[in-house]
């Protein structure tokens, strides 16, 4: 795997994780302030833009690598999203959830390696 491919995989993963956090925040805002406020709309726009970046980078990567090859990186997203949701969004992260997320990530990597 070239440095360029690694770079695009990392950027795709990070933009995907960031998008999840921004979208969750947007829906929290909508629950308290409704759908017609500028904060909600701007968060949805940012989250959608990040998802779009991740989508097109993944499409570019799929042209070069098998889906099974890219799977382990999707697996890592489980850990990153769970940890970042706890840190950034202050969601409660129990030991059970951490172990569950780690097992899911490890399982996805096993599936892709086989």
């Amino acid at each position, binding site marked *: 795997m070239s440095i*360029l491919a690694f770079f*695009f995989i990392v950027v795709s993963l990070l933009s995907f994780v960031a998008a*999840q*956090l921004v*979208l*969750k925040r*947007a*829906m929290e805002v*909508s*629950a308290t302030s409704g759908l017609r406020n500028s904060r909600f709309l701007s968060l*949805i726009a940012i989250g*959608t833009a990040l*998802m779009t970046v991740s*989508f*097109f*980078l*993944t*499409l*570019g*990567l*799929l*042209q*070069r690598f098998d*889906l099974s090859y890219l*799977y382990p990186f*999707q*697996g890592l*997203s*489980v850990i990153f*999203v*769970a940890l970042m*949701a*706890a840190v950034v*969004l202050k*969601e*409660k*992260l*129990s030991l*059970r*959830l951490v*172990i*569950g*997320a*780690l*097992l*899911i*990530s*490890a*399982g*996805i*990597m*096993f*599936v*892709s*390696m*086989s």
Partner: protein
Amino acid sequence: MTDDRRNKKTQNRPSGFGNPWLQLGLSVACVLVSEFLLKRGATQVAEPDSAFSWTGINGLASPLVWWAILLIIASFISWLYVLRYIPLTIAFPLSRVVDILVPLGCWIFLGESISPLRWCGIALVIIGLALVAKPIAQIEERL
């Protein structure tokens, strides 16, 4: 919890098509189908020698990619709805059930074989999902 409070929460809890767990399932199903469509679509129009193709935008030339985009938009709307009711630390790991549904789908419908290592991976994901899903009973109380 008093009976009054429990009744109020039961009334406020979205049910039927608005049930967030049903929406999570729909979101996963849309992602599952879109993954296959994207891979086939991207392969159809692959231009590995073109630097521009790293952006993936040339993938839009494939009709399959457009179908996949429609499903992704549908899953996105369901996902936003899910995020309104379920914490990200629970909803996101559960949504990755799609990562074992793909190989299981290939095994069941396409007759492809699954190696022992892949079965181990699938087992790990299922155990992980069970651990994550355990607090769902508590979340249900809050809905």
